[in-house]
């Protein structure tokens, strides 16, 4: 999307993330995991994610991230082998870092690889129960932690739970290993590199959301019916053209994450779309252009029933005081 944004506007920002923040993230994760992960295990025991006697740790990071595994394929093999070993009854009581799973291919969607930051493993009633954890470097501000940050992390964990469920199903291990519907977040203490663990994160609804998201993606892929991604248009330049020429639907949320938001905003402004003043204005105008609304406000007569209705709504908001 960044390349598309820079094609539309050569001045579009190139640095999406702070170099210092990236360094901090890497340093924090490394401090948790290096040397057998004593800090991570201690934090997880303290938050009762794992039992006080849990000491096992497995590092599934690839060498590019400071781990022992040579490649993503090797990490995936190790991840699947780990799940199989749990199902076969091998005892493991502790945590795994960067467990990698490959979600099987759908009817139309390609297979996908997911790396789970931390996976905890506990034996409950002789059956292994795995729970997903997400590492974030932002500070745990107690009750003042940003709700949106927490919601994003929880949504991610819901996706991991879904991925684990379908991977276990695909590997034929669904009956032998349980996936917990409670996850945990590993944040930092403010101004410190010490972990602060939030356990007991309820992921039932996020799991359902992820499941539905996958279904929708699958439905969308089926509807496209192979229109894109064929042999003819897999060149990068062709794909970029496809992205640039695809219809867009600019809205408020685009501003917060999409690199093309500025170009789409300018297009909406040129087309006099109400959305340039916000999603609520677009809904309020109900298809009438901003310019036409301005004309009506400046005294022009409404020409259609929709314009009459808009004018009435524009005029009836507040009473005149005596």
């Amino acid at each position: 999307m960044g390349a598309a944004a820079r094609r539309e506007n050569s001045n579009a920002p190139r640095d999406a993330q702070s170099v210092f923040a990236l360094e901090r993230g890497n340093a924090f994760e490394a401090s948790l995991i290096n040397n057998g992960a004593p800090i991570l295990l201690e934090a997880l025991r303290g938050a009762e994610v794992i039992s006080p006697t849990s000491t096992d740790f497995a590092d599934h990071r690839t060498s590019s991230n400071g781990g022992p595994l040579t490649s993503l394929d090797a990490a995936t093999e190790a991840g699947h082998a780990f799940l199989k070993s749990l199902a076969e009854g091998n005892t493991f009581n502790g945590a795994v870092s960067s467990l990698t799973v490959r979600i099987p291919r759908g009817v139309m969607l390609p297979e996908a690889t997911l790396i789970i930051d931390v996976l905890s493993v506990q034996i409950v009633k002789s059956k292994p129960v795995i729970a997903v954890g997400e590492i974030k470097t932002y500070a745990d501000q107690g009750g003042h932690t940003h709700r949106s940050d927490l919601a994003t992390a929880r949504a991610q964990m819901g996706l991991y739970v879904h991925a684990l469920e379908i991977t276990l199903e695909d590997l034929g291990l669904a009956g032998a290993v349980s996936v917990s519907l409670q996850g945990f977040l590993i944040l930092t203490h403010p101004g410190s590199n010490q972990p602060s663990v939030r356990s007991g994160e309820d992921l039932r609804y996020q799991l359902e959301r992820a499941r539905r998201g996958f279904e929708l993606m699958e439905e969308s892929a089926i509807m496209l019916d192979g229109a894109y991604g064929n042999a003819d248009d897999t060149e990068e330049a062709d794909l970029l053209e496809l992205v640039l020429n695809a219809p867009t639907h600019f809205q408020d949320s685009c501003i917060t994450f999409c690199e093309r938001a500025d170009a789409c905003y300018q297009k909406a402004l040129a087309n006099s779309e109400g959305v340039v003043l916000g999603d609520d204005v677009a809904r309020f105008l109900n298809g009438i252009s901003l310019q036409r609304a301005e004309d009506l406000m400046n005294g022009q007569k409404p020409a259609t029933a929709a314009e009459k209705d808009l004018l009435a709504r524009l005029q009836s908001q507040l009473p005149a005081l005596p």
Partner: protein
Amino acid sequence: MSASLETVRRLNAWAIGEPLARGNVINMHVADDEDLFTVSFLRMGGESRPWGVAFGTIADGPTVLTVPEGRNRQLVADMMAAFAPAILGHFRHPSHSEDGPAAYSTQPLRQVWLPGTSHIEMLHFIAAAYARSTWDRPDIAVLNALGNLANCLFIESQRPGQQTIVAATEALRNSYIFPATPVRQAHLGYLLGWLNGGTDRDARMASAQAAEKLSVSTVLDPHIERTVLQPLVSAWGNARNEGNTSLMSVASEDIQASLADELTMRWHLAREAAETVRSDSRTVNSGVASLCTDTAKSFFRSWGEKALNELADVDAFWPNVFTDYGARSAGFAYQLRAAQDQKARHALVHGDQELQREELASGHGVICTITSVATDSPMWKVSFSYPDLPTLKHGDKLVIAGTPSIILEVHEIDFDSHTMMLKPTWKNAKPKAGALGMVPTSKEWRGKELVLIDEMPYGIDERRATMTHRKKTSGSDITDLIVARPRRHAALDDDGPVLASGDDQ
């Protein structure tokens, strides 16, 4: 206020091509130059402690403090210890001011303005770092005091109606309606571009969009971090590892210069926002004075009194940085906020016709004409013309807009005929209420067209808050079962050792 009302207002602002004044009065206090302390912060990406701070009253201008390495707790604490006396002195901390804090004082209310909410959030980070720190430093008491003030300011910033701490973006949005999506209205430069950036819509919009490209939050533009500051910070770190003090000094000065530009830019934006609101031609709502009095009392209770107690070696009971802990105190805080929200609206609505119109549009009042006045016992019959369906019922209390001491009780209401029987709650004339202070049985009331609005009985929520606060463990309350896990504090020794060489490696 309803969502569609804001939508229409935004369309009106767009049609006239500039920000629209919100109402015909200003609903906030803006202190004089010497009482208005402005602070802006910067932090390194991913960090939560400050990398630099610009501070000072408008009268004195900004002082800038920075450290070359924002990840070095030692350096950052030194910087904060240098910043602390200025802000503590501004709020009349007993150890840093000759005056001392007071609930009832003829001295003007002191304010702190910050560019936006991310800067206010820095206060919480500072509180988390220093409020309860047991760090073995000679200036730890100053850092503790700074942390506690920062925490109290952060908590105060969430209290409806408070006038102590102001996010400049919020002050502008409360005073003007901007022809832009709310998502963009969190950027101070963008708002000021619309206000002061030209004479027509295109010029203002271009100015706002240009300003929006510059970061004004507590973090720098990632491009500036990567291309300008990362090489300098690396150079400083390398020089320190090599023990090369002259190279350290050069890198440090370059970092200071770069950060100072960014900090002063943010500081001046906050100053410009304060001056824009203060120089607005509208008068200040007469209710703001009572909000200021209330603020002085409230902030004294939440901070000043505790600072005095601490100095006198009496338990200060500083609020926790992270949580209310118990369900009882959380419930108390919730009820109190609800009460304060109503109280603030009550203070302002009588001096602001726009707020009165909003109340009416929400059904919390009526525009009515008195059709008959009983002369034996106080009872009025009124017919209301707006709204069609008020949200009133038997027993509700109404007041005459602009005259809150004149209270009427709804005795009967007939929505079909748009009539009500109202019972005045006063008997004798009220000279202080002016022309409307007549006895309720006076025939002069007949034919008068009045705006009656809901009394906003904030006292009920205040009493509810008190009851919640006093509630003892009953043994049968579900909240008794909620046990908060003790939260380890970031600033205690378990934060890890603070090394003399710094901890930024």
